[in-house]
């Protein structure tokens, strides 16, 4: 039954709770816009667009888990946090969610606050905290970076899925009673598997980018002893 494609559709959560989360998402996004504006320079602007496009494309891939009935898709919060930082990253995922809700009807427009809170804010924040922690602990090698990306992506997906459980507990339109714990368990289990897929994609992408253009990885900015950034020459990047 947990075919919650992560985008909550209209009518699953009641109006007042949806409104509260919409206000919460709006307030947090305002902070992200203010902080993100500072981050968004000439190099980050195209990167933010590409990260959003990549997440958009990857969210189209639905993972069937066990049976056709249970599926979910990638969120991209960790990838965004890794490559463009938490503020712009949260904005990227939000943009993806808004466009999907407006254009594809994936996730109800009235539930946008809930979806943004789960996937863009909670997911990206959890991922960034893990990235910041793991990058300090693990050795500065490609393997360390890969593990950081994998673990933060996997766990952020599980955390985001529990956001839905909390929201359902607060304002689910149907009282599940004791089945709520079951919902939490199934959501966590299903998204642990999705998280593995997400972790693999995030790790391969981030490691490749870090190998060729380390200047593009936001999470590595403060950590590396300032290697001269390769400023792309106009007209020829290669």
């Amino acid at each position, binding site marked *: *039954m*947990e*075919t*919650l*494609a992560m985008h909550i*559709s*209209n*009518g*699953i959560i009641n*109006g007042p709770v*949806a409104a509260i989360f919409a206000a919460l998402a709006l307030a947090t996004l305002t902070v992200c*816009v203010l902080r*993100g*504006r500072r981050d*968004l320079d*000439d190099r980050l*602007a*195209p*990167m*933010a*667009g*590409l990260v*959003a*496009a*990549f997440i*958009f*494309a990857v969210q189209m891939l639905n993972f069937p888990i066990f049976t056709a009935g249970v599926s979910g898709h990638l969120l991209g919060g960790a990838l965004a946090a890794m490559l463009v930082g938490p503020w*712009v990253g949260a*904005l*990227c995922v*939000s*943009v993806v969610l*808004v*466009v999907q*809700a*407006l*254009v*594809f*009807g994936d996730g*109800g*427009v*009235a*539930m946008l606050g809930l979806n943004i809170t789960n996937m863009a804010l909670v997911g990206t924040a959890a991922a960034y905290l893990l990235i910041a922690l793991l990058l300090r602990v693990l050795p500065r090698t490609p393997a360390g970076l890969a593990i950081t990306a994998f673990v933060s992506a996997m766990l952020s997906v599980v955390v985001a899925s529990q956001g839905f459980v909390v929201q359902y507990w607060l304002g689910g*339109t*149907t*009282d*599940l009673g*004791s*089945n709520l714990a079951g919902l939490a368990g199934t959501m966590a289990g299903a998204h642990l598997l999705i998280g593995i897929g997400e972790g*693999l994609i995030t790790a*391969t*992408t*981030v490691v*490749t*980018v870090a190998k060729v*253009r380390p200047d593009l990885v936001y999470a590595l900015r403060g950590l590396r002893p300032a290697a001269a950034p390769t400023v*792309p020459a106009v*007209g020829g*990047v*290669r």
Partner: protein
Amino acid sequence: MAVGAGHAHVLYRESSSPVHRLPPEVKIVAMVVFTVAVVATPREAFWAFGGYALLVVVVATLARVGPRWLLSRALIELPFVLFAVALPFLGAGERITVAGLHLSVDGLFGSWNILAKGTLGVLASLLLAATTTTRDLILGLDRLRCPHVLTQIASFMLRYLDVLVGEARRMRVARISRGDDPRFLWQLRGFAAGIGALFLRAFERGERVYLAMLSRGYSGRMPAVWQGAGAATAGQWLVAATVPVLAASIAATALVLG
């Protein structure tokens, strides 16, 4: 790149109906208000959902969007329909017996709630998508005072989606011409190995696109916005307001009666 033509997405239905001709910002506001009205309606007010469905049918007819197209695209909602079907079995509280099945009353109402509100919401956004190109959509968001950081990310996202798809196609052709035989599940390995390379190639191409745009005077917003042409007139706002106002009055009546 032809800006208008390049950004018509898969769901866009080329036409010149009255709905297509409305400015995007007007349609976005109408759609959002309509959806909020639907969600705010108490689930016991069955007649209200009939009214909303009628509004959707009228707009779809005006926009010349056929019922078959609309219904087949609405299948995106399917996962939630399955969740809705499970609710009568999982819900707590009072239970009734229907056709030999022991069902929760609250669960039955819950699945009706999700089915009705979910479907109406999906249909409303499909109508918006069918009548508005993505470029217009971003233009509309910008005119609605959406922060430039967001519209900038959104417009780059749409521009780079094409870049990404193009690079993926090129890499696939390159793989095939080197003797790979990408079919069904086996291409997953090649795809996974190449995903980092795909990202980098798309970025470097996208960066060139961006630098070319900068050198031609791009300042973060689309020309149509700062030129100020084509923004909605008061008359267009009034015309488009009919649907959300009707929906809001249905919701208000349902709330008062319920």
